[in-house]
């Protein structure tokens, strides 16, 4: 101890003359920092109620409560936060796939009632609802992956040369990485027509439990090998991860499960169904709807006979979709399993021609028909009957049957749907120059985006807002197609604009073949007149109830003829519903008989 030790402390008296550190009005002058993690804000219109915030919250501070109307891609639920639990970690903000959740820089909430600290951000009136400042997820920091795992695909150069399947399928690592992106919110389940338990089978992929995955898939879809390739995947359009960039490849993940398991192993994994209950059900048409109904009816214990007019089963899956999208052995894989369960599929048996409808009707306890749309629409223009004008479906049929279509060197495909794309790309594989004409804009095209993209990638020329006018015999080529430009004219609010021909704009394409692929209609000619009279039809569709029962109680119908969605997965769902319906109908009938 020295003199300094006694004197030195006094030297700091100088601080008495410094500016005080005290904040005079702390409550007013110090708002939270720009990044302050204060009270929550939520853009309720952007939010889709996926519940990921609830999932990640380790305090279970978040509840999902109904606020908005439920629609596809939006559960209508919104997070409600309990500030008796919240720890302001902002993980909910970080993980929010839509980016709707944020935090304001307000932080004072005082009350004498402990019950009030719960609120729905953005919905309940709060002073911070429109706060500009506050915590947001920083650029460069993200807990979710917005980019898809790239799918190995043939290059366009290679793909257009052959009918080899273009999409090659995920490897195990790729599938796991893709499955890992799933946030398991379950928004997609409602949108899938078959309500497949998507998050569950994706979890099975993560857990590398293919058997479990197969079980989950078959629970709602007996044609997964086909669906895993060509499904219209409405699930992917509502996927919550899509808000971060790209949706999960749900369809391809399903395909991955199926690709991992040999057909021979299915029986060990899947449920064989109930024993034969002695009842017989007929199914007309072996497309996805018919096969789905047959499968689930078989599981319920019914004897099922499928009547199909074609040489091989599968309907549109086989005849409407070219092999590079859906190889025939994959269709066979699905069908073989259904057949192995004891479903009797009779090929080359056209109702009305080879076997009488009345006989089928009489011999079975119930009947389900899903005969699909087989009658192509014509263009309704002059020269439509010239040689060289083929129907899209007809051409695809020929290719499936192994007959080389007579296309020539240049082809014009008219239409913007998947059949048009298939026809175009198939023609391309026969080395034809392909032009696609479509009446509306590219964004209006009903075909899948990737189909359009791939068609263009393979060298098909797409001309939009083009209306075919007439077909004439060509000079150097077989045909000449005259077409006019269209402009989009508004058709009233809430309706999509319609194309109107610009007068005088006429152009011509010289080509060898014109393939109209602008849709098909149903063909009910197999139905006897008195049966048809008992059913009701509306704009070409058979009218059915929720169980797909027609006005005639013994007859059920599904698939494209009863369903405006007109895709495979809807048909599968229809078949499943109808199977349930038939089961209920027959059991009720039995009960009624027992009571009499």
């Amino acid at each position: 101890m020295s003199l300094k030790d006694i004197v030195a402390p006094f030297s700091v008296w100088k601080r008495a003359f410094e500016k005080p550190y005290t904040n005079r009005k702390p409550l007013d002058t110090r708002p939270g920092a720009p990044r302050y993690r204060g009270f929550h804000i939520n853009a309720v219109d952007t939010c889709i109620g996926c519940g990921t915030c609830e999932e990640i919250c380790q305090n279970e501070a978040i509840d999902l409560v109904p606020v908005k109307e439920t629609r596809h891609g939006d559960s209508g639920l919104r997070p409600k936060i309990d500030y008796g639990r919240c720890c302001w970690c902002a993980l909910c903000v970080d993980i929010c796939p839509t980016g709707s959740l944020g935090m304001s820089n307000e932080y004072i909430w005082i009350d004498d009632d402990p019950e009030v600290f719960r609120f729905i951000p953005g919905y309940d009136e709060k002073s911070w609802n429109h706060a500009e400042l506050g915590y947001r997820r920083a650029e460069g920091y993200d807990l979710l992956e917005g980019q898809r795992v790239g799918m190995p695909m043939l290059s366009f150069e290679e793909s257009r040369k052959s009918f080899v399947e273009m999409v090659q399928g995920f490897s195990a690592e790729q599938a796991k990485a893709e499955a890992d992106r799933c946030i398991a919110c379950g928004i997609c389940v409602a949108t899938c027509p078959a309500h497949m338990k998507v998050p569950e089978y994706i979890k099975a992929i993560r857990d590398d439990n293919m058997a479990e995955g197969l079980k989950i898939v078959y629970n709602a879809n007996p044609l997964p090998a086909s669906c895993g390739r060509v499904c219209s995947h409405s699930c992917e359009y509502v996927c919550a991860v899509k808000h971060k960039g790209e949706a999960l490849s749900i369809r391809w993940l399903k395909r991955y499960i199926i690709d991992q398991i040999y057909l021979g192993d299915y029986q060990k994994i899947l449920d064989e169904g109930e024993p034969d209950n002695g009842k017989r059900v007929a199914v007309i048409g072996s497309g996805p709807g018919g096969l789905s109904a047959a499968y689930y009816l078989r599981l319920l214990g019914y004897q099922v006979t499928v009547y199909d007019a074609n040489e091989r089963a599968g309907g549109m899956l086989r005849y409407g979709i070219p092999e590079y999208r859906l190889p025939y052995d994959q269709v066979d894989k699905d069908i073989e399993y259904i057949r192995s369960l004891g479903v009797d599929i009779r090929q080359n048996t056209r109702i009305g021609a080879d076997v009488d409808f009345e006989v089928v009707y009489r011999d079975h306890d119930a009947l389900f028909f899903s005969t699909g749309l087989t009658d192509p629409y014509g263009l309704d223009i002059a020269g439509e009957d010239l040689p060289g004008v083929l129907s899209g479906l007809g051409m695809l049929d020929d290719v499936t049957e192994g007959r080389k279509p007579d296309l020539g060197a240049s082809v014009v495909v008219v239409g913007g749907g998947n059949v048009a794309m298939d026809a175009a790309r198939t023609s391309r594989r026969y080395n034809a120059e392909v032009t696609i004409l479509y009446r509306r804009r590219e964004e209006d095209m009903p075909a899948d985006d990737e189909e359009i993209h791939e068609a263009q990638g393979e060298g098909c020329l797409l001309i939009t807002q083009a209306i075919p006018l007439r077909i004439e015999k060509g000079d150097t080529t077989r045909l000449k197609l005259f077409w006019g430009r269209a402009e989009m004219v508004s058709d009233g609010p809430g309706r999509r604009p319609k194309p109107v021909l610009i007068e005088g704009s006429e152009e011509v394409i010289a080509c060898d073949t014109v393939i109209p692929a602008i849709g098909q209609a149903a063909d009910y000619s197999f139905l006897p007149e008195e049966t048809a009279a008992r059913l009701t039809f509306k704009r070409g569709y058979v009218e059915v109830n929720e169980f797909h029962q027609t006005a005639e109680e013994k007859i059920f119908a599904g698939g494209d003829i009863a369903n405006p969605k007109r895709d495979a997965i809807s048909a599968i769902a229809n078949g499943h519903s109808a199977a349930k319906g038939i089961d209920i109908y027959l059991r009720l009938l039995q009960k009624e008989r027992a009571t009499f």
Partner: protein
Amino acid sequence: MSDMQDMEKTESEEQIARIAAEMRLANDGLSDQDKAYFCDARPQAVEPYRGIMEKFANWARSQSLWILGFGTGCGAIELRPLMTSRFDMYRYGIQPRPTPRQSSVFVIGGYASVKTVKRIVRSYEQMQGPKFVLGLGSCTVNGGMYWDSYNTINRIDYYIPVDVYITGCMPRPEALLAGFNRLKQMIREGRCEGMNTYAENFDWYKANQKQIIKDWNMPDYNW
């Protein structure tokens, strides 16, 4: 006649004695030897002064809030900045005191473990009235972070009455100041009746406390 009266009188005396005995606290947690040391009376609700006197008293109370210096949880860390020069709560009439006898405000600093609840109850009961409780942080409302912990309670209002809650984890010192302002306002309005609530619902509070504090080795009312 007089006999009858005597009998009646003794009966009513017995009754009074019995009621009085029932009003006594059992102090079962204490040994017989210790029972002699501790009071066995219950807390009593306090009648307010009349009219303007109560208003004046409330104003005076609100102007000098002395906090008990007991950092029961992590919330205590934001009391330090409040006590020191930057936020300087002394200018608002708020200051920490080392003992419950001198304090009028108990700041529950967030979560409270069972072991601490025992001390909180003891300290709270030792505080002189009028006394107020400030629940700081989310943990006091509904368990907060530690909602599933085996050792922290979820709702402090089951064990002692709370006047004002400040949500946050951590609430900033400003939030605390705002909480004190709210408390002051409530005191001035005569709405902080926590102490009387405690006296009136003493048995309920005590039952709750005893349910979680398994080794009750203190008097039932620590006064």
